[in-house]
């Protein structure tokens, strides 16, 4: 106990001194310092590295402040503007996959989130558990599971063959197969924010609106939808940025034949070993992510989520 007493004495002595350096070893600074240092070194640093590498000449693997170029941006933007070549395809595929994924996850999630928040009482914990499990399973494993399900001679084929269906077009390696994968992988990120926002609506609010003569449609349009707006915004931005980064889905379910922004970035890094070209593409993703991330964090109210957890 004597070591603990010494520590106690020291901490209280430090707490009363005014030296800004010793303030660093008192709460709250001593508590947040490890996280702040970790993120400044290993999160802000890498993001700066992406930006700096994007203006280096091709095939640079170290940073040279003397040489810089915008040739990669010119190549990428030129390709996207003309709509031809790989960058034209990348733009169309990525926009299609991300936009469709966001809309489809929103349409599928909203009724489920509403049911979980307001209609389902029995077995609710079981449903929540089933819906959260995929979030904690490797994206590789889930996408692989879909491949096993859809592939020729796979699980789906052996099930439908029981009903005498044997001829249907191949399911793998299409753009919609990638969208199925991204919809599946990112749907929890839509469902749970909407669920949490719907939980906050008080039963009294609904009852009051009904007493005032609101029908179901008015109730939804004037009460439920506006109150769940933060969840819809957070979920949509979350799904949109995460599906921009969908690489495994494109690789496995797209069979490497359909390039998205993420798979093309990965290709630039892995196969063609061109860090600056990959970085220039990643900068676009980085900007979108930071903007959407800050909007999400300004919309999230941690205190509100905490108070709902008790309900």
């Amino acid at each position: 106990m004597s070591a603990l007493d010494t520590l106690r004495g020291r901490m209280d002595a430090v707490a009363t001194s005014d030296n800004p350096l010793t303030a660093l070893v008192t709460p709250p600074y001593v508590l947040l310092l490890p996280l702040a240092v970790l993120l400044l070194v290993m999160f802000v640093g890498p993001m700066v590295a992406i930006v700096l590498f994007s203006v280096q000449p091709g095939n640079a693997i170290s940073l040279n402040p003397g040489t810089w170029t915008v040739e990669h941006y010119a190549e990428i933007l030129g390709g996207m503007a003309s709509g031809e070549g790989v960058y034209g395809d990348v733009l169309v595929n990525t926009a299609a996959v991300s936009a469709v994924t966001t809309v489809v996850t929103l349409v599928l999630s909203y009724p489920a989130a509403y049911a979980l928040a307001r209609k389902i009482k029995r077995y609710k914990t079981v449903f929540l558990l089933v819906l959260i499990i995929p979030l904690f399973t490797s994206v590789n494993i889930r996408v692989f599971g879909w491949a096993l399900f859809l592939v020729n001679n796979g699980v789906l084929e052996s099930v439908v063959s029981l009903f005498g269906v044997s001829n249907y077009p191949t399911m793998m390696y299409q753009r919609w197969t990638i969208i199925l994968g991204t919809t599946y992988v990112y749907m929890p990120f839509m469902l749970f924010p909407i669920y949490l926002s719907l939980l906050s609506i008080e039963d009294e609010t609904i009852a009051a609106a009904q007493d005032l003569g609101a029908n179901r449609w008015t109730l939804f349009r004037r009460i439920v939808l506006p109150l769940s707006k933060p969840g819809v915004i957070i979920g949509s931005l979350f799904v949109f940025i995460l599906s921009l980064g969908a690489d495994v889905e494109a690789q496995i379910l797209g069979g490497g034949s359909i390039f998205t922004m993420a798979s093309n970035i990965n290709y630039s890094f892995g196969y063609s070993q061109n860090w600056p070209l990959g970085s220039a593409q990643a900068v676009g993703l980085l900007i979108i992510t930071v903007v959407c991330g800050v909007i999400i964090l300004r919309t999230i109210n941690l205190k509100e989520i905490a108070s709902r957890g008790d309900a």
Partner: protein
Amino acid sequence: MSAESSTLTDRLGAGAWYGYVALVALFFLTPLFSLVIASFYDGRFFSIVDYEFSLDWYRAALASGSIRSAFLNTVRISVPVTILSTIIGTGGAIAYTRYEFPWQERFKLLALLPIFFPLILLGLGMSMWSSVIGLGYGIVPSIIGELVWISPIVMFVVSITALGVDPNIEEAARDLGADTVTLYREVTLPLIKDGVVSGAIFAFVLSWNNYYIVSYLSGPQSTITTWIHGRMTQGFTPVVPAVASLIFYVSLLLVVAAFVVEFRDDGE
């Protein structure tokens, strides 16, 4: 409300809500069912008609040296990540929720921003940065890399628990003469214990399943997720579903455990 709830249309309505959520749950479980079914099948291709249960692929997975070393590497990364991210994330959460300090909201923005980053962006940025600052590639860089993504998630989970705790309790303890160490040991930590435990479980499961960050930072070391990815892109090998299922069983057990911790008191 209760007077009408027994009418037929209402019951049909309630059934429809349950049915829809059950469909969504089925959709969520489809690839996982496929995986488990495939892992017990004794042939190269599936067929429901002549499906035969077999444990051969699990035996093959457990006997393989490369799979065992990939498992070991994953454990070598996950265990330190769990311990360190729990400490770092809990520290951040206590600082953010129990104190007031300048730049508090900016700290929250920085601390929680990595959660919303596509992992491919984190992975490739860290991979180049690692080369620039001379950190290199392997187990230790993978640990540090995963900490960047997982510590903020722990902070998020613990913050939500900590914000539910009345700050007056700590003030009362201080008024009764508790110093900083006693305050933490006797009051703050016990109150946020459930959040810390579920944060730690989530940290382990996320690290256990992480692919993007380790694929960029592990260098020559193969982990179980990079091993699966490598095999997957080379076509179907029946041992892969067995290995992937083993990973999944561990995750499943731990997520159920986290749920039990979270909902233990809300059971009534």
